[in-house]
């Protein structure tokens, strides 16, 4: 019985992707248009062109910038968000300003940052940092602001203050919103990583894809875009695993609450 359920699950998960690939394969079988890729070619390009030194030379710098930018944004965003969120005056001081700065599309800053910092790693890391900062920061502020009032009073009554109040009450209580902010920041980080490399770069995944495009190597270009897609999917997956662990108590609590209803 359970074997049948597993078989059904596997079928459901794989059926449509297989259909799509087969349609793609059949549809491009007799196609000679060099701009339309064939699944076999994309896979072979993935193996022959990308796997090996190219992967290390071009993908590692991209991931390094992504990691530093995103990590910095999370650290600064949460720290600043807690500070601002705890103070009513700070919230009101920064409210309209943050609302405006957030509305500026981050890629607009790319030319500006190139002017100020230059074409090297720092301008790209800083761009990723700036783009990811706002979702993390604003969600943290919101999360800290909207912690449970009764719990807040309780911790105060029990003499929980300073660092331990922060560690055992404020941070856990706002963690669901913080994680939401990080989840929103993930796609922004990848987008800005690629954009900064498409626009002006000396290495990186986006740079290499642009190079393939300009030299009309369509197959490797498609394979590179698949790699970007894989990075996106991988990041989303890693995030979900971490979120499940960090917010295990939260999901448990919600399940209990919804079953009580």
């Amino acid at each position, binding site marked *: 019985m359970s074997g049948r359920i597993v078989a059904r699950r596997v079928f459901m998960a794989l059926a449509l992707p297989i259909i*799509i690939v087969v349609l793609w394969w059949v549809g491009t079988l007799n196609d000679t248009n060099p*701009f339309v890729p064939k699944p076999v070619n994309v896979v072979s390009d993935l193996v022959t062109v990308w796997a090996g030194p190219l992967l290390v030379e071009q993908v590692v710098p991209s991931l390094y910038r992504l990691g530093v930018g995103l990590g910095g944004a999370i650290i600064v965003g949460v720290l600043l968000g807690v500070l601002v969120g705890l103070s009513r005056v700070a919230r009101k001081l920064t409210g309209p300003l943050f609302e405006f700065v957030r509305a500026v599309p981050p890629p607009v800053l790319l030319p*500006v940052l190139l002017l100020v910092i230059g074409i090297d790693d720092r301008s790209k890391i800083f761009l990723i940092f700036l783009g990811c900062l706002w979702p993390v920061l604003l969600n943290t502020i919101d999360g800290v602001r909207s912690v449970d009032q009764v719990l807040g009073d309780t911790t105060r009554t029990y003499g929980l203050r300073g660092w331990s109040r922060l560690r055992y009450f404020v941070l856990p209580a706002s963690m669901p919103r913080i994680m939401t902010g990080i989840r929103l920041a993930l796609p922004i980080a990848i987008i800005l990583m690629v954009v900064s490399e498409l626009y002006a770069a000396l290495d990186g995944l986006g740079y290499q894809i642009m190079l393939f495009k300009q030299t009309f190597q369509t197959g490797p270009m498609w394979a590179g875009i698949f790699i970007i897609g894989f990075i*996106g999917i991988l990041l989303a997956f890693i995030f979900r695993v971490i979120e499940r662990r960090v917010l295990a108590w939260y999901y448990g609590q919600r399940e209990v609450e919804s079953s009580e209803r």
Partner: protein
Amino acid sequence: MPTSTAPAERTTRIPFSQTRVSTPVLGVIGILAFIAIWELASRLELVNPLYLPPFSEVAATVVQVLIGDQYRVQFWTALGNTMLGWSVGLVISLVLGIVAGLIIGSNRWVREFTHSTVEFLRPIPSVGLIPIAIVIFGVRPTATIAIVVWACFWVVLIHVVYGVTDVDPVAESTARSYGFGPFARARYVVWPTLLPYLMTGLRLSGTIALVVAITIEIVVQAPGIGQMIAQYQSAGNAKVVYALALLAGVVGLLINLALRRLENSVLSWHPSVRGEVVL
């Protein structure tokens, strides 16, 4: 939660930060402080003023760009191009997203069948597709629209699917036993449940569409605000670059405000919006 009695007025003086006027006053102070820091950083040459012109000069340039003879025509044409890509892309992704979302959401089997594919395709970053779109469509508005559609379609789709699956089974059965046909059920049961989700999806994708459109213009020099920014950057005219960046922020803010307005008026009957009015 609306309380029937207002909280008792305290006789002690209320701190300024809790008064009603403090919100706009502190907000304006915050913005002024930001502007002052910008101005000083440039005037005192903490940052090279060539790269970061003082705010006062950028503000003057903003006015120039909006109504001055030198930039006016170029700016408004560029803005028109950007907004064209934005609106067409948004409308297409709305239509596609709603149709696909209704099909996927209304049937459990279809939902399971498509789940893995949707979850696989959704995280693929839109800008990664820029080279493909350029190869297929060339540097034309179609390329911009195609990528905007890709970026927004998934947002709309997910929200519509959530909305359709959120329909209360009791309400659905009730309507059915009262003899509501499929169209009446769609109109009176599914639609009201779906609408809040759809409006959230629309608001999110409105912002995403603008960011994506401007990004493509910067990267591949498609006509629009982004292209204008990139041009003035390579010409080394920092003032115009900053002025355009500020204006892009204003456009983003206006879009956000307009969509929030729309959401509130369309959903004026919904508890989440009504609640805000009461409080």
